[in-house]
Each structure stands twice: as C-alpha cells, then as structure tokens.
C-alpha cells in the first residue's frame, strides 16, 4: 500500500467523524421520539403534532451535524497549518540544504507546535556543523593547492637557474674533464627537477581525485603518441618499443592526460629496466566492456619477495635501486591510483626465471 499523506489522513478522519455524528444523530432522534411518546403515554400523536415533532428532531439533527462539520473543518485546517505545512517546509529545507542552501537562511516555521519547532532547531544546528566541516574541507584543499604552487615555485625557480646556467656553461669550450663534471651536474639537476615534478603529480592526483575528466578516448592513438614521446629515450637505451594494435579497439572512457601519465610511467620503466638490445611490447585486448593493456618487457624482472612492495610509495626494488637510473619509487604508486580511479587495477606478471615483466591493467569502454 502506498503511504498516505498527512493531509489526506486528516480529511478521512474528519469524514469518518461526520459519518459517526450522522449515525448517532439518527439513532438519537429515534430514541428521543420514543421517549417523548412514552412520556405522553400514547402511541400516536395527532398529525399536526407529529409533523411538528419530526421538524424539531430534524432541525436538531441538522444543527448537530453542522456543528460537527464545522469542528471537523477547523481541525483539518489547524492540522494543515500547524503540522502539514511545517513538515512540508522541513522536507523542502532539507532538500535545499543538500543543494546549497545556507544554514543561516533556514526559515522559521511560524506557528508550528514546539515539537516541530524543535526539529527545525536541531536541523539548523546540524546544518551549521555540516557547513563548518565543509568550509574546513575547502580551506584544507585551498591550503594544499597553495602549498603545491608555492613548492613548485620555491623549488623550481632555483633548479631552473642551475639548469640554465649549467647549460650555458656546457656550451663554452673547456677541457674534457670539466665538461664531464658539468654534464654530471646537469644530469643530477634534471633528476631533482624530475623528482619535484613527481611530488607535485602525487599531490595533484591525491588532492584532485574528484576532478577527473573522463572522455571517450582512442587508445591506439594515445599509446602511439606516448611511444613517440619516449622514442628518443628508447633509442638511447637501445631498446625497441613495439606496438601492433588489434584491428578493432573500442574507444575507452578515460582521463586522457592521467592515462597518458600512467602509460609513460609503465613504458618508461619498462625501457629503464631492460638491457640494450631488449624490447618492450605493448598489446591491447578488448574484453567485456573493458580493454586490457599489457606492457611487456625483456628486462631484469621483479623477484617474488618484492611483489607486494613495488606499489608502495618511495619503494625501490633492490636491483632497481642499484641501477641509479633516475627512478624515485613513486611512479607505480601513482599509476596504480590512477588506474583504480578508472575502475581497474594495476598488476604485473613476472617470470620466475627472472627475465621479463608484464604490467597490465584495464580501462572501461566508452558508452
């Protein structure tokens, strides 16, 4: 049964009361007529008296029923004014608060009984608390984003100066030994710049979780341009990057830039940990509303005892740490978070024999 409204309920009760009044008036009049006849000690009255008695009883009945009607209407109106309307107002207020009404603008339920008034007061207090918490949240995220830009500026400005100065120096003629020193300094400087970038990415991704822009994206295109971007790095490492997309891949629903970030990290890692003459192969596999992406390399592999750690912040594998190749232990941590925000998970298969690793994850198909 559907829930009945309070207004309907009061009308039904009023009608019921009227009906009972009608019935009781009818039987009351009959009783009265018999009593009067008994009192007069007769069974029949002369016709003119009989007519008069009926008139009196009918009039009395009408007055009684009318009084009941008026009382019922008054009760319905009072319930409407004092209970139904304040309650409707309350539910409207609750709804509006959900969509941005300020706690200070919550109206006063004029004339409502104090129980309802009390609900309003309690709700207003609660709304104020919610509002304060909301304001604190906004303040926190503002502070965080201010921190990000300040950190970016404070750290990057000197790093830029060092970089540009070293670059200018590297162009000057000088003896080989000194040239190597400058090149080393430049390399380390670039590593620092990269670390700052990654730290900023971590905070941006962590604080901007809710600002994802999901749009239909062509995966083969995204992977193609990402590989192009990394081609120079791959050539330098003498690693071949292969990608042959299947004939048909549906568009996916993804945050293009963040997904590109994941791909860059996975492919760059694969290149980084693959010895010269090795290869990195990217493949795609559409399956049931998702597309799986595999990044396979012929690199140094990941030992089983490090399986659970490699996605942790700042963790670096033993072999990886020895290589001193610019990894900072954040890439996979962020990549996994981004993939999870796409409703998938990032995982890998490593070869027992130690050679080669395949990272894989899935993203949803665009609808």
């Amino acid at each position: 049964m559907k829930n009945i409204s309070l207004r309907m309920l009061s009308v039904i009760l009023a009608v019921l009361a009227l009906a009972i009044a009608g019935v009781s008036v009818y039987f009351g009049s009959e009783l009265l007529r018999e009593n009067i006849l008994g009192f007069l000690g007769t069974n029949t009255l002369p016709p003119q008296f009989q007519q008069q008695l009926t008139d009196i009883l009918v009039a009395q009945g009408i007055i009684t029923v009318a009084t009941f009607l008026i009382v019922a209407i008054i009760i319905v109106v009072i319930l409407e004014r004092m209970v139904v309307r304040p309650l409707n107002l309350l539910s409207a207020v609750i709804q509006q608060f959900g969509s941005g009404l300020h706690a200070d603008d919550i109206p006063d339920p004029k004339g409502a009984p104090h129980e309802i008034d009390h609900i309003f007061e309690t709700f207003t207090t609660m709304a104020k608390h919610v509002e304060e918490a909301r304001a604190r949240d906004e303040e926190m995220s503002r502070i965080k984003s201010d921190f990000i830009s300040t950190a970016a500026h404070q750290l990057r400005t000197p790093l830029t100066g060092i970089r540009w100065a070293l670059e200018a120096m590297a162009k000057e003629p000088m003896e080989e030994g000194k040239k190597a020193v400058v090149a080393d300094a430049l390399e380390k400087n670039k590593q620092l710049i990269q670390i700052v970038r990654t730290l900023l990415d971590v905070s941006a991704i962590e604080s901007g979780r809710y600002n994802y822009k999901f749009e239909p994206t062509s995966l083969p295109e995204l992977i193609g341009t990402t590989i192009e971007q990394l081609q120079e790095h791959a050539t330098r490492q003498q690693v071949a990057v292969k990608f042959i997309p299947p004939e048909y891949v549906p568009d996916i629903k993804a945050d293009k830039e963040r997904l590109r970030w994941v791909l860059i990290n996975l492919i760059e890692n694969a290149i980084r940990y693959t010895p010269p003459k090795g290869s990195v192969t990217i493949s795609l596999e559409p399956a049931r509303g998702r597309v799986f992406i595999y990044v396979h390399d012929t690199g140094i592999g990941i030992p089983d005892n490090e399986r659970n750690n490699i996605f942790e912040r700042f963790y670096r594998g033993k072999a990886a740490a020895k290589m001193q190749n610019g990894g900072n232990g954040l890439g996979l941590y962020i990549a996994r978070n981004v993939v999870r925000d796409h409703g998938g998970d990032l995982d890998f298969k490593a070869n027992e024999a130690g050679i080669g690793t395949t990272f894989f994850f899935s993203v949803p198909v665009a609808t």
Partner: protein
Amino acid sequence: MADETQRTVLVVEDDPILKNLLGNTFSGRYKAMYAGTGKEALQYVEEYKPDIILLDLMLPEMGGFEVLEQLRARTDELKDTPVIVVSNLSQESDQEKAKQLGANDYMVKAEVAIEEITSKIDQFFQEA
C-alpha cells in the same frame, strides 16, 4: 648589436638570475626587454609594441593571468601579440586557464632548456 631587423621580445620575469640567463642567450638574437612585474609588463607592451611576450605567471603586483586578460581585452592590434607562458606552475588547471585566457603556448620553466625557448620563439616568428 641590436640591428633594425631584429624582432622584439618582451621577457616578463621577476627572478633576476633567470632574467640574466635568458638575457645572455637572447642577446644578439633578439631585441629583448625585461619587465619584473605584471604592471610593468603591460606598460612595456604599450611602449615597445613587442613582437612576442614571454610571460611568467607568479609575478609581484599583478599576476600573469591578469596581464594576459588585460592584454587580450585591448582594442588595438597589440591585443594579438603572441604570448608564450614560461612558468613553473605545471598543474593542468593552470595550463588550461592560461590557454583559455589566450596564451599561445605554455612551457614549464624548469623542464625546458633555454634553447627550447628560443626555438619556440623562432617558430612563432617564422609562422608570423
């Protein structure tokens, strides 16, 4: 060494060392002038009518975004002066905002070599 054929570059940069480093590279290539604040930048645009502007975003007095906004709101031909934002702000939201306000390009300062900046400038000059 500045000859008449050299193009004019307005560099808006408040860090003196970065300004010098850019200056060393630019000298002989372009006629470069330097503004250290947003207000100065707008003044120099009017005064020198540069061919291109390198614009930092975090600037004293008036930020780069506002400079961009005011420049694009002009009614004369200076309003279309190409602007390359060269800033250490790297968040996507900043890049998007700059593009929306009419920046022609965006480079993250620490992540580019000076040579990349000059080749970007040359690219704009060739296209012009």
